[in-house]
């Protein structure tokens, strides 16, 4: 024992605290058991010695008799507690209790029969008292008394377990009443001489018996047995009943046994007799009850498995996200109902065929099958006009009692069908039919109503589970994409200028916000030389990722060639050549490019299909719109000829507003913010800084659109010309 513990500790390595506390508990209960066992043995031995002395010395002392009775009773009380200790916290299944009891009863019966037939009664009956005539009688009395009394304790313990298997309101009360009356009978017996009887005794005896009968109706444990277990119970209870009958006959009619027992202890004798009667009645009742439960056992079994599998499936729905595991489990659970038949699960994929929107075809994909091959399924299910079509059409469960007689299985030869009956249950989710669960049995009329109900329930659960697993897959995928997009967003932010250019004479501010994570808007600045600053704002057609890619390409082109060309028009023509070779034919980029000469305030502007620049000067507010077309729309001379260039000389305090269509097309319902509102806002910008103007425009757009989120990328760039500065002929680095 010690060794095993040691190795256990090494192997498992429990936390120290738990180990010691459980060990302590172990030790105290072991000590308690040893004390109880030793106590009862010592007491019984003491009684035996007293009896031997009594017999040897042949003294008649009622005091000694009383002492032995008390000691013996104490011994048995300790024994009872020992039994309690040994079985404490354990719950034996009824069948095991019955089995153990049968063995115990068998031993006791054999012992009793052997002694009853082999040994003769050697007691002297005198004045309702028993006197052993020899030491042999004393010995036999002790052997029988001990074993029978111990047996009685075991019987009581077992019956208590069975009676209280499923507690009802009064089950405990009735059993306690039985034990109280049993004890009372014993106490009365204590005052009487072994063979003496009186009315009180008889009344108590019969009342106890009555309670035994009442308690014998507590047989609910039988219901929960499987059919096989019920059959075993039937056999066990029969033998137990017979064994108890033999015991009772011996206890009441065999003088050796009854005398030995009464001599051993009249109290325990009464209790033993009553316990055996209780056992007799109880197992008689068990036998009859089991017999009546047997016909429904199968149905009960099935119901139990159904409940269990539904429960399992229900748990599965929330736990299993692996699609393959899921369909495997669903089909194996369905198979349990099929009794040697087959089952399979198909997913139905709808696929539109041709251009007509209502011509739909379905593709059935078998994802799991049990007891059937794909060829057999294909042979059974024709491509058209079969059960599958009907289920898809009606979305209702279909049950065919006799496959051979059904028109949908006319292609299956008469007598050649391997299946007799079939159930097809649809898997319906929020988005419609997603699959069909089939179950077949070999015999026709094989599926009862409750079978069909369970299969339908399986199909329902399966559809939820499949839907769940799909959603989870989707959400994982979405999360991954979200992470990617967040990354892309950060990358793209870095493509926009990280700081504004600080150039004497120019006050500038800009903002760009994509409608989605990434967008196709672009703005940038370039220091062409120490006098001139280039400002570009662009918009790639479309939105999202594709636009973002072109946006980064535009940035590359701008950074690469803007310094090579002094005129905006030249730059745009070259940018178009660079971009056209790589841009998709339905995509284009609109761009506006202005170069400001800080020494003179001359602004030169070219526009490749982009929104016109708003020029706000003291007495005039207007859009500047030189001709041109979007980058990527055409190449060569067509593009170059269309491209114009316009120049204006800015006066100190003039404001130029560059923007993308996210500004003018900011929407409220069907209305747009539009050019006129922007123009009015420009008019009101006198005396304000570029930042202020930017904020005011944004604020106005925000209040204009209200709750509608901006549906387009939005970029706004405001330049304010402060006038040529005497010292600003040079741009500080």
């Amino acid at each position, binding site marked *: 024992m010690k060794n095993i513990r040691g190795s256990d500790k090494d192997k498992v390595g429990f936390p120290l605290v738990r180990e010691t506390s459980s060990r302590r508990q172990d030790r105290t209960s072991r000590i308690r058991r040893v004390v109880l066992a030793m106590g009862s043995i010592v007491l019984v031995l003491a009684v035996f010695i007293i009896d031997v002395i009594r017999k040897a010395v042949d003294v008649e002392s009622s005091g000694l008799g009383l002492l032995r009775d008390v000691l013996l009773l104490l011994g048995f009380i300790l024994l009872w507690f020992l039994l309690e200790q040994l079985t404490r916290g354990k719950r034996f299944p009824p069948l095991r209790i019955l089995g153990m009891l049968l063995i115990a009863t068998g031993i006791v019966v054999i012992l009793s029969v052997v002694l009853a037939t082999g040994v003769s009664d050697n007691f002297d009956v005198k004045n309702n008292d028993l006197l052993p005539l020899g030491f042999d009688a004393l010995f036999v009395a002790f052997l029988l008394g001990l074993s029978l009394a111990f047996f009685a304790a075991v019987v009581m313990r077992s019956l208590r377990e069975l009676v209280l298997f499923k507690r009802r309101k009064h089950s405990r009360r009735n059993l306690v009443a039985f034990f109280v009356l049993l004890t009372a009978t014993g106490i009365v017996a204590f005052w009487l001489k072994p063979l003496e009887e009186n009315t009180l005794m008889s009344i108590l005896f019969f009342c106890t018996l009555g309670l035994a009968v009442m308690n014998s109706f507590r047989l609910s444990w039988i219901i929960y047995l499987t059919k096989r277990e019920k059959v075993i119970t039937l056999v066990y209870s029969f033998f137990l009943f017979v064994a108890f009958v033999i015991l009772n006959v011996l206890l009441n009619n065999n003088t050796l046994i009854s005398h030995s027992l009464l001599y051993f202890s009249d109290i325990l004798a009464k209790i033993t007799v009553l316990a055996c009667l209780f056992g007799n009645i109880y197992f008689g009742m068990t036998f009859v009850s089991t017999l009546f439960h047997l016909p429904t056992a199968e149905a009960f079994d099935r119901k139990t498995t159904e409940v269990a599998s539904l429960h399992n499936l229900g748990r599965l729905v929330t736990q299993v996200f692996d699609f393959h595991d899921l369909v495997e489990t669903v089909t194996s659970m369905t198979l349990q109902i099929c009794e040697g038949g087959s089952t399979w699960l198909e997913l139905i994929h709808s696929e539109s065929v041709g*251009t007509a929107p209502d011509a739909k075809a379905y593709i059935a994909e078998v994802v799991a099958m049990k007891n059937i091959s794909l060829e057999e399924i294909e042979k059974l299910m024709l491509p058209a006009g079969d059960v599958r079509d009907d289920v898809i059409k009606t979305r209702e469960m279909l049950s065919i009692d006799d496959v051979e007689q059904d028109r949908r299985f006319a292609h299956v030869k008469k007598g050649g069908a391997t299946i007799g009956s079939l159930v097809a249950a649809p898997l319906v989710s929020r988005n419609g039919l997603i699959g069909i669960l089939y179950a077949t049995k070999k015999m026709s009329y094989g599926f009862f109503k409750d079978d069909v109900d369970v299969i339908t329930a399986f199909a329902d659960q399966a559809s939820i589970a499949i839907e769940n697993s799909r959603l989870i897959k989707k959400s994982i995928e979405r999360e991954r994409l979200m992470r990617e997009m967040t990354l892309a967003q950060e990358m793209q932010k870095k493509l926009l200028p990280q700081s504004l250019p600080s150039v004497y004479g120019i006050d500038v501010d800009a903002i760009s916000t994509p409608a989605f994570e990434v967008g196709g808007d672009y703005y940038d600045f370039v220091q062409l030389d120490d006098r001139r600053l280039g400002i570009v704002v662009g*918009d*790639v*057609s*479309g*939105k999202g990722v594709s636009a973002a890619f072109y946006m980064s390409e535009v940035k590359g082109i701008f950074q690469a060639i803007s310094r090579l060309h002094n005129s905006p028009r030249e730059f745009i023509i070259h940018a178009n050549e660079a971009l*056209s070779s790589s841009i998709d*034919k*339905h*995509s*284009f980029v*609109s761009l506006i490019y202005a170069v400001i000469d800080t020494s003179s305030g001359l602004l030169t502007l070219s526009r*490749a*299909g*982009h*929104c*016109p620049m708003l020029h706000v000067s003291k007495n005039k507010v207007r859009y500047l*719109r030189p*001709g*041109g*077309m*979007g980058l990527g*729309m*055409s*190449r*060569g001379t*067509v593009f170059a000829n*269309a491209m114009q260039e316009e120049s204006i000389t800015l006066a100190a305090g003039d404001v130029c507003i560059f923007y993308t*269509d996210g500004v003018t097309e900011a929407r409220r319902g*069907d209305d747009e913010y539009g050019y006129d509102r922007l123009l009015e806002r420009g008019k009101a910008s006198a005396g304000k800084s570029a930042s202020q103007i930017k904020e005011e425009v944004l604020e106005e757009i925000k209040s204009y659109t209200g709750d509608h989120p901006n549906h*387009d990328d939005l970029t706004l760039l405001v330049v304010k010309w402060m006038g040529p500065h005497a010292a600003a002929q040079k741009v500080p680095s």
Partner: protein
Amino acid sequence: MSEFNISQRETKDVNVLEIKGYLDAHTAPKLEDAFQGLLKSSKYKIVVNCKDLSYISSAGLGVFMAFVEDVRKNKGDIKLSNMSPKVFNIFDLLGFPLLYDILADESEAINRFLDSKPIIPGNAKK
């Protein structure tokens, strides 16, 4: 959300697409399908009537650019007509009038096709 519809008819060998509502990234595939259908059945004389077109985004404009090349290769054209001033402004900003025939009236556009010598103002994507 945004509604977009196309109705199609054939007048004197010229196919007219009447587009209605919002043409943006969501609805552009509808117009693409319509063009694809026409090209499949070798119809290259196409007039797009924009009478009820209330908005067109860059993705919508892209649809015309995607098909005009193939159509012109087959001696046909995509002509646009009946634009509201607002919609015309969007086309105009991008320089579409430099590449496409944009006419005030549908019949005018059809007649352009019937004149033996089509006047194409520019060649898209040489």
